[in-house]
């Protein structure tokens, strides 16, 4: 039996984020949330392997109660069990505190029901840190394959998986001993269409909610704001770019518009004209 665990996060849909022009703070209210896109692909891959090998997929997420909807989305895709880690004390966690909570949870699940693969998204689109996966794997002493684009083989008897990852220069095929962890690119699997039974199951699904005290008594010094070595010192809005000169072809014609722009390019600040640069 194959057991995969996927660590998922619900994130604000950054397309719709607005900033309060007065305070410079994020307006959270009314911002729609989505399942982190990379995590969705991770779930899809886990489910694919479950279908191939027989077994089960557990998803875990640390987040506010509203994150239930993202867990349901995973059930809809074919996951079997969902655990939501939700408590006031968890909030304000940076990646170190997050990795502590997730790693402890994975350990607890593993103790009851041994895990073969732990899936993460490549990164969460709200923070874009890509730190949580490697952090959890280090805590659990598991091999970590980041930027995975394909799982070629999972051998639960001989306890290894072959995973392909993409680096800046090439792809690497890595044989990792199980249990292993990976962070997923979108290529890892296509998002499936939900089957009717999964769809129905997801509608009524209520994930288990784990708090800071139960079933695991988390060390209060290691969770949430308290457990986070990094703190926000200040925030601001990015400098607004000064909009440049715009010419309209309807006003000056295509030829002149292009010529004006090329002239501007020729005067680039560093005296190193683009055309000059190109000619070198």
């Amino acid at each position, binding site marked *: 039996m194959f057991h995969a665990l996927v660590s998922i996060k619900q994130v604000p849909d950054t397309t719709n*984020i607005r900033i309060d022009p007065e305070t410079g703070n994020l307006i959270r209210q009314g911002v729609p949330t989505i399942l982190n896109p990379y995590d969705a692909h991770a779930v899809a891959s886990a489910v694919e392997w479950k279908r191939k090998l027989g077994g089960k997929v557990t998803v875990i997420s640390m987040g506010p109660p509203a994150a239930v909807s993202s867990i349901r989305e995973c059930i809809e895709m074919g996951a079997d069990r969902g655990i939501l880690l939700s408590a006031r004390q968890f909030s304000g966690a940076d990646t170190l505190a997050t990795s502590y909570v997730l790693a402890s949870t994975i350990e607890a699940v593993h103790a009851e029901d041994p895990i073969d693969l732990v899936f993460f998204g490549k990164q969460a689109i709200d923070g874009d840190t890509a730190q949580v996966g490697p952090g959890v794997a280090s805590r659990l002493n598991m091999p970590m394959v980041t930027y995975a684009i394909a799982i070629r083989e999972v051998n639960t008897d001989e306890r290894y998986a072959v995973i392909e990852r993409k680096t800046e220069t090439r792809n*690497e095929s890595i044989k990792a*001993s199980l249990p292993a962890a990976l962070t997923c690119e979108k290529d890892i699997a296509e998002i499936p269409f939900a089957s009717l039974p999964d769809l129905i199951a997801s509608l009524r699904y209520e994930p288990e909610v784990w708090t800071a005290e139960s079933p695991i008594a988390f060390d209060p010094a290691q969770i949430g704001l308290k457990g986070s070595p990094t703190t926000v010192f200040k925030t601001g809005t990015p400098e607004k770019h000064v909009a440049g000169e715009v010419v309209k072809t309807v006003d000056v014609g295509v030829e002149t518009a292009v010529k004006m722009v090329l002239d501007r390019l020729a005067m680039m600040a560093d005296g190193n004209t683009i*055309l000059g640069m190109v000619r070198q």
Partner: protein
Amino acid sequence: MIRRFWVYIEQEDGKIHPVAWELLGVARRLATEIQDELEQTGDQACVEGVLIGENVEGLAAEVFQYGADRVYVADAPVFKHYLNNIYTTALVSMAQKHQPEVLLIGATTLGRDLAGSVATTLRTGLTADCTQLQMGVGRDSTRKLLLMTRPAFGGNVIATIICKNHLPQMATVRPRVFPAALPEPGRKGEIIRETISIAEEAINAQILAFIPNDSSGVKIEYADVIVAGGRGVGGSAGFALLKELADELGGVVGASRPCVDAGWISYDHQVGQTGKTVRPKLYIAAGISGAIQHKVGMQDADFVLAINRDAHAPIFETATAGIVGDLFEVVPNMIQQIRVLKEADND
């Protein structure tokens, strides 16, 4: 006391990643920013590189030229290829031994993989993808801290992060965000050889094969000129036109996400939050509306030229120059004018 500013010198197959030179430049500047504190305390600041690999000691000479005072070298067959667990073990044990105050790592695929594991194992903080780094006095701290500034929430907010009570203060920085340090030929430093023992059971993964990937050709993140297309380009034929312009400019082609989703061009060309962050000298955005997720990937280009039919497209807010017009008229004309200019130049 020595206050150590560390830079992880990323190398693969004996080739140092240029982000290391950029980070050495940053580390040197940070070290000078605590000059006042050094004068008061009599402490000393050192910029130091960490090099892990097999047969890499020879690379240290170059690291000194870019400003390192000292290089710690872990050179052994077990470090031949990067593997998360093995490199983490090495960097962690060196950091525990020498107690750097700051540790900078390039936000490359390798660097991000390493940084997350090292920070967690050292139980310290890590701030990813910093766009500004400075030594400054944080709230209720007497000693200067590393002020780590980065965009958050898809570029909508700029946050400055500190890591007050834990060392090292760790940050990753994307390539091309900071200028490279200027090498000083003949500059020398001290090599410290480190012996790291890796237990057999720590080797929990192995590389079976390296497979060249189709992206080996395009490296938009390092290009000086990018001609990017969006939905307005209409299809792969439109991208062929952009490629022609890119070739004239010695550049590469970029794309917005919908074009990648539609299969007009491969993912390696995607610019933006879920694609690559680029910093070219020239970025031409043709038929791209300028959604925030796209802008965060390209807004640091030196010169942005927007070409769009719609005068109200948000891309014009980010542009250094813009042409409101049909890209299918503008781009061919631009190719033609550039060719004429080049010919004139050759005469």
